[in-house]
């Protein structure tokens, strides 16, 4: 290695470590505070590792002060139900738009493109009124139903299906398969990469979503993880930071653990869906 490249390499790492410090600082503070006893949190000196470890105290207080496991379960129920229903609805539609000729196909695809532009926040008020009149507010249905239709999923899968050779579809028809079984037995297996990307996108979006759950549910038995953190913070209005940071860690951990295990999948999934 020449001195020049040694200098540039050092500069590169220096700059990147600086940016890493910015991006990782909140995580470090969160975890470090979650294992500190109160008197060390309020002390003037900054220490990353506590003198006296309060890990068990803080985490057990977090679990006993709020039903965190319930919030996590709700998060899993809601994200899984949403993704499952999105696939159930979007895949046949995407296949029809990509491979079948039917009356109104262009109009239908036009609607898909148009709806892609509208953030769901914009229609939250009427959705809320609709659920209010059918009496579904404050339920799992309220959290799941509005997201069963994903125009983004339809668009993404349609683009992917356009690239699947027609011969594959024709061969399946020759074998006497119905169009619906072609969707599930021919197209679905071919679409696993695109479906994974969409799954990452959907699960991350709905696990972390705050706006809609905040609007749609009010009893804490339906709280999703972000609502749970807020409920915890509001209940512990004092300065009980140790358990609060423990609760935040618990809520953030599942998705981050999945991400660390399958980074490439996640990053590619987000890049793929981001560029579309």
């Amino acid at each position, binding site marked *: 290695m020449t001195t020049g490249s040694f200098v540039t390499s050092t500069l590169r790492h220096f700059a990147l470590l600086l940016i890493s410090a910015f991006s990782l600082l*909140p995580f470090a503070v969160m975890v470090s505070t979650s294992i500190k006893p109160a008197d060390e949190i309020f002390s003037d000196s900054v220490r990353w590792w506590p003198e006296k470890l309060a890990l068990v105290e803080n985490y057990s207080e977090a679990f006993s002060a709020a039903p965190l496991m319930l919030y996590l379960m709700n998060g899993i129920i809601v994200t899984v139900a949403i993704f499952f229903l999105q696939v159930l609805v979007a895949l046949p539609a995407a296949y029809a738009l990509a491979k079948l*000729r039917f009356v109104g196909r262009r109009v239908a695809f036009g609607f898909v493109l148009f709806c892609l532009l509208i953030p769901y926040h*914009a*229609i939250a*008020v009427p959705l809320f009124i609709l659920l209010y009149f059918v009496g579904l507010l404050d339920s799992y249905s309220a959290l799941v139903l509005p997201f069963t239709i994903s125009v983004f999923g339809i668009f993404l899968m349609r683009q992917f299906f356009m690239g699947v050779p027609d011969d594959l579809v024709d061969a399946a028809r020759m074998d006497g398969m119905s169009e619906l079984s072609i969707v599930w037995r021919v197209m679905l297996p071919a679409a696993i990469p695109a479906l994974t990307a969409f799954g990452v996108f959907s699960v991350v979006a709905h696990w972390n979503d705050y706006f809609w759950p905040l609007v749609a549910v009010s009893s804490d038995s339906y709280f999703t993880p972000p609502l749970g953190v807020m409920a915890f913070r509001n209940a512990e209005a004092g300065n009980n930071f140790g358990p609060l940071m423990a609760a935040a860690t618990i809520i953030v951990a599942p998705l981050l653990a999945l991400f660390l295990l399958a980074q490439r999948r996640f990053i590619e999934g987000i890049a793929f869906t*981001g560029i579309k």
Partner: protein
Amino acid sequence: MSLSASQNRAGLALIAPAAVLGLLFLIAPLASIFVLAFTDYQLGDRALNFIGLENFHALGDDPVFWRSLSNTLIYSAVVVPGSVLLGLISALLIDAGTSLRSFYRTAFFLPVMASLLAMAVVWEFMLHPSFGIVNAAMKALGLPPHNWLKDGSIALYVLAVIGIWQSFGFNMVLFMAGLSAIPRDLYDAAEMDGTPNAWDRFKLITWPLLAPVTVFVAITSVIRSFQVFDTVHALTQGGPNKATEVLLYTIYAEGFEFFRSGHAAAITVVFIMLVVGVSMLRFLSLKKNGASA
């Protein structure tokens, strides 16, 4: 193949569930926003009265609305350049070497994955006027401490920094995808042709070839920044004194705290026009360089 009756039937049947749900949960709500905006509807009412442009006249006279609109634009004007530039710099720096690439990529992407709400609570603690690490650092550097979230002159910018923190990793990933599409031999050729300076090569090759990605990333960032809500709701509730009131928060307060649906719908119309306007730009930028889509 001609339009066969059976294929027509199958197509309609397969699209039917999506069409029904789309009508119910997307088209009808969207249409009713544009109806509600011209009514005095309040949640729970069984009937509504059309009041013409009254909601919009009221908005025009409402200083909170103007504050909300200008705060949203200011927030966006800080977050977009910040997160695009930091995303680009990160991508270029990671791409410039071979060691620790995946460590840095993961570190920068972590904030994108983590629940913003949970991390907002952590930021609140970091920004705490007496025990926060930010003021501790200010003190160590001999700078005056601040009450970051309660000081109306800086609170919006503090939220913008959190916005940059949360989103630059997303932009980095898009830039890295763009960088990997640039053929390596272009750089070799440039070096042989007497462009030994990395900065010159950047200006000659990287920047022009990355331009379409940059436009796309910038527009996406604008749209995302217009939707800022979580940090505002969790940390400032639009305060102090409306200093961090942003459009989505105003819609939320009007629609779901005061239940003034008609009024909320009128603000939503403004919000939709902003987002759709910017999205049209994205559409055009994608059309112009279909390759990146």
